[in-house]
């Protein structure tokens, strides 16, 4: 088959390297606690070669697993000096495999439950009979809906207008709202108080940038007392 003409997505066969490994262990009917590592590694590598030759598109995760297996195989060949205390190198792969199998079995148990909208149904009383004011397309909103809404907006605006989201920027915003909250309650606050709770350097910078921003926006006035040297922020 000519290159690039025939491509199969591997996901049809194996979802990931773990899936392939489970398949090999089942096929060879071996004990997961006593994996014949040389045999399984060879078969695993054969599969990868086969996938390559068939031009199957597969993720780098498969290569990482191959490296792990090869590494374990080589470790098994070197006799351990104090083999009483050393852990079986195969545990490196047996542990994640066990967890993966445990989760696969959990997934099967979930499917067997009486699933809402599939096996069992809840009442469906027409709320219009009870609500006087009609609601036009009201969504139950969560964090995901909020981000999703913003993502859709971003897609519709030209790149030039797009904003850069850096952690720091958000942290400055956070500081602004924090300072304003304090000012709303107390009316004024000293510089010292604003910085006293800060732990990290980046937070101090964020606080300082936040103060500059709100001063620029003319939301606060900064006053320094001549006698004490105390700097105080006043809410305008």
């Amino acid at each position, binding site marked *: 088959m000519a290159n690039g003409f025939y491509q199969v997505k591997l*996901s049809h066969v194996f979802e990931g390297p773990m899936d392939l490994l489970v398949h090999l262990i089942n096929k060879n009917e071996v004990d997961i606690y006593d994996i014949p590592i040389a045999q399984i590694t060879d078969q695993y590598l054969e599969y990868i070669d086969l996938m390559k030759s068939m031009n199957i598109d597969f993720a780098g995760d498969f290569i990482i697993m191959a490296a792990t297996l090869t590494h374990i195989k080589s470790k098994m060949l070197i006799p351990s000096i104090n083999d009483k205390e050393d852990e079986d190198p195969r545990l490196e792969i047996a542990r994640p495999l066990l967890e993966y199998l445990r989760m696969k079995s959990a997934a099967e148990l979930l499917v067997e439950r009486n699933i809402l909208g599939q096996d069992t149904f809840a009442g*469906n009383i027409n709320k219009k009979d009870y609500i006087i004011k009609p609601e036009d397309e*009201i969504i139950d909103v969560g964090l995901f809906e909020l*981000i999703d809404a913003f993502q859709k907006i971003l897609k519709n605006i030209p790149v030039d207008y797009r904003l850069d989201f850096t952690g720091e920027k958000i942290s400055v915003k956070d500081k602004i709202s924090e300072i304003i909250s304090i000012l709303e309650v107390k009316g004024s606050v000293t510089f010292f108080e604003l910085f006293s709770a800060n732990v990290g350097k980046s937070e101090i910078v964020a606080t300082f940038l936040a103060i500059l921003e709100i001063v620029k*926006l003319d939301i606060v006035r900064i006053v320094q007392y001549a006698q004490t040297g105390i700097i105080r922020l006043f809410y305008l």
Partner: protein
Amino acid sequence: MTKDLTNIIESLLLVADAPLSVERIKKIITSADTAEIKDALEELLRKYGEGKGGFVLREIAGGYQFRTLPEYMEWIKRLIQPNPLRLSRPALETLSIIAYNQPVIRSDIEHIRGVDSGGVLRMLLERKLVKVLGRKEIPGRPLIYITTKHFLEVFDLKNLKDLPTPKEMEAQPDSSSEKITQKPLFE
């Protein structure tokens, strides 16, 4: 069999969003005849008769439907009144713009959304999801908006830094090919 028929009709009545007629039931339960269905409905009318519980089975618009008693209307209204987490799409859009770009002025919001946002803004202010921070010292001295502490509470966030960035929510195009393996599992 008749007991079973009654039970099936009872479950259909719970799930239906409009009164169920005998003809409709007959089309669903093809093995039952009209007389049997009518008998089952009679039995259910007795079971869910006036004074037997919190709701009754009523004959409405040529069909049958469960209805709550009028005397409990007051409590039911309290149950179904809109909660703070229910927003219209324009309100959600506006809120997301403020959350990610704050502090912002109205014209920024309207520039991004492309429509007048005064009404939506007022609603968000009323619900205490956003607040006025002050005025920006540019011509016209427009109001500056930011999100409130209540906003963080409603969305279960500790602070604005916890707000996930849109990038974090993006699905990798080369990811585990969800779409391809989208076989129906529950069938």
